[in-house]
Every structure is written in C-alpha cells, then in structure tokens.
C-alpha cells in the first residue's frame, strides 16, 4: 500500500497534497491537490489577491505551509536541506533583487552560488555557464551595464538568466512577464518552453495574461476563494464562460477560444445593421462599440471569424449553423430588422457565389432604398469614414 503511494508520487515530479497556504496562521487557500510531470509547465491564474503569490512563496519555502505537503520527486520538500534545494529550485520573484554596484553579469553570476566553493570563486566552467545563460535570453549586450540602470524588461530577462545559471530542475516564476513588451513576452515564454523540452525543466509560474497562459501551459491551476477553483489542461479550463466566472467579469467579455477580449457591448435597440462575415466586420463592430451605438450583426455562420466579436459586442446576432443553408425565416427576420435600423453598413461588396444570404440582404437594402453604406476598413481613416456617413 505504502509502496503504491510512493510510486504514484514518483510518477509526478512535483506534487502538492492537501496543501494549505496562508499568512500568519490564517489559511488563504485550503487543501490544494495538484501534480505535475517532469518537463511540464503549470500556470497559476486567478483574480488579483486570490493567492497566486502565496502559493508560490509556500513552494519556495518563503512561507511555511499551514498544512499538507509538497513532494519533489516523491521526497517531502521540508526534509530537503536549504542548500540541497538551491540546486534543484530557482526563483524569479516579484520582489526586487538588490543590485547596487552590480553589473547585469554580476547578477546573473549569483545564480552559480550553490556550485561554488567556500569563498565563491568562479571556475572557467562557471563563467561559461553564465555567458551561455545570458546569450539564451539575449542579454549579452547589456552584460556590463549596471543592474540598477536597465529597464524593467531587461531586468526580467537578466533575472531569468540568473535562474537558468542555477541549473535548476524546477523553476518558480511569479508574474515574470508583467513588465515585458509583447516581443519579449513571447520570447520569454518560448525560452521557458525550450528549456522544458530540451532540459526537462519543470516550471511553475503565475501569469496575468490569460491568452498566453492558455497557450504555454500544460496544466492550469485556477485560484479563487478558499479552495482550488479549477485544475486541468488548458482545453478543460478554457471552455466558454469559465474565465468570466473565475474572474467575475461583469463588463466586457473574454473569449476562451482565441483569448480575445472585448469591452462592454452598447445596450439598447439596434440602430445600425451590420452585414459582416469573413473577418471584415470586427473592426466596424469595435468602432460602433467605441461610439456607443447599439447594432445588430447580420448573417454570420457560427464559425465565422467575425462571430466572436459580434457575439461580444452586438445587441443582436443573427447566426446560422455553419455549412448549412441559411433558413428562409432567418433571412426574413434579418430584412425586418434592417428596416427598423437607422443605417445599414455592409462590410462587403462581393459576397462570392455561396453567400447568397448576405448578398440578398444587401440587394434588399438597395431595393428598399434603405440608407446603405459600404464600409470594409474603417481603420483606413476614421475621419473619412465619418464624413461619408
């Protein structure tokens, strides 16, 4: 029986069993159960103050767990010595590293600490590892600059290099991408993925960027309230409506499928009818949202690229089943709605031979002398667009 348990623990590189975390003896999250295989990435997501940092601080032993155990390769983490742990686990925390009078290279070099001797003298190998780590995060060009004088984004990359230098098996990162611009966000996460694949590094991190969390993570741990809110693969977690519930989103919309976010839809009776489809209408929807004009979005198959934005922003969406002909009554319905609107905007001039429904709608509007405009790209120049309307 006991052997079985041990074997089960071994199967996972990292395992939290009944872990309760909190500050000053007051539990914040109780009895967490999660596990991770070697070489995988676990991301903690959840609203501000849900306890992501608290969980990470407990794992890095900055906080005592209030109950339960963390196992690393089947070994109780509390039984591993602090110096033994420093060769297994490296951290990038939100807490600023103090680097007065230190160059970036000096900071990276501190990662070699667990491997140097009594006085911390570096061998040639240590220098080589430091250089390789800096090269990996593209920080070689700032190696001689003072750590206090570089940007937050550069600092974050230097901190990653430092952690890599420590040659850990487990890497803990607390909101590592917060200060990075989009290029370095992608690059940072790509480096993590590469380390996982090539060196079998296991990563536990917290992220605010849900769209990135959905893409980089092998497992997600959702935190909200006293218990774990959800734990699973991105496919399991990012199902429609889940994120809105997890974060209590009331204004606006998060699309789990593509990670897109839309602001709150203008409410009320539609004043504009938008004929869309094929991705040409999303920008028009957003323009109308900015102007606060409620609108109806016209006939879209549910798999159309315009559909997520329409669903999030339109007061009414006239949608059909993909790959099926548009039902006659939906078409009539669309025509009736068009007549009650002040304006009709068609985002397309050519409908192709198979989209009879929208072609019909445009023709109907023309025939009935409805105020019809053709608008494909309002991004072309909003000024011009407004003048013609």
């Amino acid at each position, binding site marked *: 029986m006991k052997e079985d348990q041990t074997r089960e623990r071994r199967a996972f590189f990292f395992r939290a069993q009944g872990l309760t975390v909190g500050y000053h003896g007051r539990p914040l999250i109780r009895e967490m159960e999660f596990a991770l295989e070697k070489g995988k990435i676990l991301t903690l997501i959840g609203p501000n103050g849900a306890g992501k940092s608290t969980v990470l601080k407990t794992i890095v032993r900055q906080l005592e767990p209030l109950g339960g155990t963390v196992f690393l390769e089947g070994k109780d983490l509390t039984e591993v010595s602090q110096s033994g742990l420093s060769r297994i686990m*490296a951290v990038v925390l939100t807490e600023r590293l103090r680097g*007065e009078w230190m160059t970036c*290279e000096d900071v990276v070099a*501190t990662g070699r600490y667990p491997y140097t001797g009594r006085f911390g003298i570096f061998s040639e190998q240590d220098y080589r590892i430091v250089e390789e780590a800096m090269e990996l995060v593209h920080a070689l060009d700032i190696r001689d600059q003072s750590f206090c004088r570089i940007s937050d984004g550069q600092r974050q990359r230097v901190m990653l290099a430092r952690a890599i230098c420590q040659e850990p098996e487990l890497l803990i990162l607390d909101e590592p991408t917060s200060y990075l611009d989009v290029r370095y966000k992608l690059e940072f996460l790509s480096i993590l993925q590469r380390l996982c694949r090539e060196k079998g590094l296991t990563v536990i991190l917290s992220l605010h960027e849900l769209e990135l969390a959905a893409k980089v993570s092998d497992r997600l741990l959702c935190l909200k309230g006293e218990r774990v809110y959800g734990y699973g693969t991105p496919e399991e977690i990012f199902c429609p409506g889940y994120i809105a519930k997890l974060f209590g989103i009331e204004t606006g919309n998060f699309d789990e499928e593509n990670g897109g976010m839309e602001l709150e839809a203008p409410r009320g009776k539609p004043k504009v009818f938008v004929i869309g489809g094929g991705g040409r209408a999303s920008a028009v929807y957003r323009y109308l949202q900015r102007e606060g004009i409620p609108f109806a979005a016209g006939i879209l198959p549910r798999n159309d690229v315009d559909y997520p934005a329409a669903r999030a922003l339109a007061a009414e969406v006239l949608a059909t089943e993909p790959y099926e002909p548009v039902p006659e009554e939906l078409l009539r319905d669309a025509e009736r709605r068009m007549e009650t609107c002040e304006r009709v905007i068609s985002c397309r001039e050519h409908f192709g031979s198979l989209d009879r429904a929208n072609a019909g709608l445009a023709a109907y509007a023309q025939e009935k002398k409805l105020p019809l405009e053709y608008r494909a790209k309002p991004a072309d120049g909003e000024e011009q667009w407004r003048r013609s309307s």
Partner: protein
Amino acid sequence: MRQRRAVRAIGSLIFLTMGVLCLLVCNLCMGSVKLAPSELWSGLTGGGTDAAAGMILWEIRFPRAIAAMILGGALGLAGYLLQTFFRNPIAGPFILGISSGAKMAVAVVMVFLLGRAVRVNALTMILAAFAGAMLSMGFVLLLSRRVRSMAMLVVSGVMIGYICSAVTEFIVTFANDADIVNLHNWSRGSFSGMTWEDVAVMSGIVLITSGAVFGMVKPLSAYQLGDAYASNLGVDLRSLRTAMVVLSGILSACIVAYAGPISFVGVAVPHLMRGMFGTSRPILLIPACFLGGSLFCLFCDLLARMLLAPTELSISTMTAVFGAPVVIWIMARRGRERAG
C-alpha cells in the same frame, strides 16, 4: 571587462596597502621630535645614538600608530557589516548609536569600579562596551522592524545615541574629579596612551573577528541580493544575521573600549571603497574596508596630532571633517537617483 575589473581591484588593493605603509612611516616620523625615515630602523632597534628618540618611537608612537591602524580597520569593517545588514548605505556604528551605547556601558563600569578603587582592566572594558553595543543594537533592531525607511532608521539611531550620551553625562556628574578627567579625554575619542599590551589584546580580537567576517564572504554576497533570493540560494538567514550582529558588535565594542567613540569612519569608508573598487563583492570589499579604515584613521590621527601641535585635537574632530561630507554626498546621490 573581467580583466579590467581584476586590474582595478588589484591596483586598488596595492594602492591602499602602500598608503597604509606610507602613513605608518609618517606617523612614526612626525611629531614634536622629528625623525628622518632613515633613522626609523636604528631608532626601533635601539641601535641609534638618541635613546630618548628611541623611547618616544617605541613606547609612544609605534603602539599608537598600530592601534590607529587596527582600530581603523575594525571601524571600516563594522560599518561595512552594518550597512550590509540593514541594507542601508548610511548605517555605521556611530550613526546607529551603537558606539554611544558602548560608551555609556563603559562609563558606568569605569565610574562604579573606580569609585570602589578597583583597577579596570582592558577585558572588563571590552565586555562592558560589548554589552552596551548589544543593548543599542537591540533597540535599533526593534525599531528597524517598525520603520522601513532608510532615513527614519538613521534618525532613530541618532536619537538612541543622544539618549545614551545623556545617561553618560548623568553618570559623570556623580563621578570623582579624577574619574571625570579620565572619562572626558576618553569619551572624546583618541588613540593616545596605547601600550603594547593594549595593542596585543586589540590586535588579537580584531584580527580574529575580521577573519571570521572574511569567512562569511559567500553568504554575504547572497545576503545583499535580498532575503528571498538569499534563502533560495541556500543561505541560513537566521544564523548569518546573528553572526553579523555579534561580529559588528565585537568590533564596535573593541574600538570604543580603547579609543572611545569615533564618528563617520564606519559610514564613509565602505562607501568610498565601493566607489574605488566599483563593485559590491564582499570578497574585495571586506579587505578593502579594513585597509581603507586603517588609512583613514592613520591619516586623521596624524592631522589630529600635527595641525595644532603641541595641542592635540580629538580624533573625532578630524574624522568628522573628512567623513561627514562623504555622508552628505551619499544622501544627495540617493535623492537624485530616486528623483531620476
């Protein structure tokens, strides 16, 4: 870059060592009885013609210079430890009130024991100073948990210093006239009147303590990154902190017991050394702060003796003149960095 830094470090160390040696020679040669450097050797070995000069050299100037060197080094190192401990560039034994605490304890012991006609030996003085230093340190530690700001910590330290000085004054009013003279000279801070026995004891204590500090170079290098990163690197924070407090306490106590409170050396020297070496690596800064402190104190003691000779200035007068501007400079720099 690596090479350039190595050259800079070695160059700076050589410069400091040479400086200490030169000033040592100056301290031995200069004074009311002037000696040429060439006369030094014969004076020391007693082979010279002038026996009186030999006496002055061997019994007065030499122990005094060595004491300034050893205690100056101790001051630099104590300042370095305290600055690292509090992660505060203007910490130092004098500014944080630790010297004043030690002074108070020594005054208490001196007045009460001398009043009972008991001869006070050096070891008792050091122990008393250590107890006083730890008392002040305890208060500062308690306060540092409540106040996070660097300036507030320093202000609290200065206040503790004032309280201790007030208590010392209070005790002095109850002392005999002879004691007061004794105490007054000492409490102004001076390297005068050192015997070879004093030098032997202080060298033993300071060198052993400094060796222990040097033994901590590696954990200190991790500690200065911040608690979270240090403990992730495997540093036992609790024992390291205890060691830093005790060692800086011993160093401060030793200085106060022998030379009285000496201001600003502890704050200024570590900062000057960081600038000179362009790094915060403890493996370089620990020896640098020791040498820098020695240099600073030898220089100040020389000026204290020579400027208004034959009247002698107190050593703190000189250290304040050269040290205080450095502290002001640090604060201005910090302010600018925060603004920019």
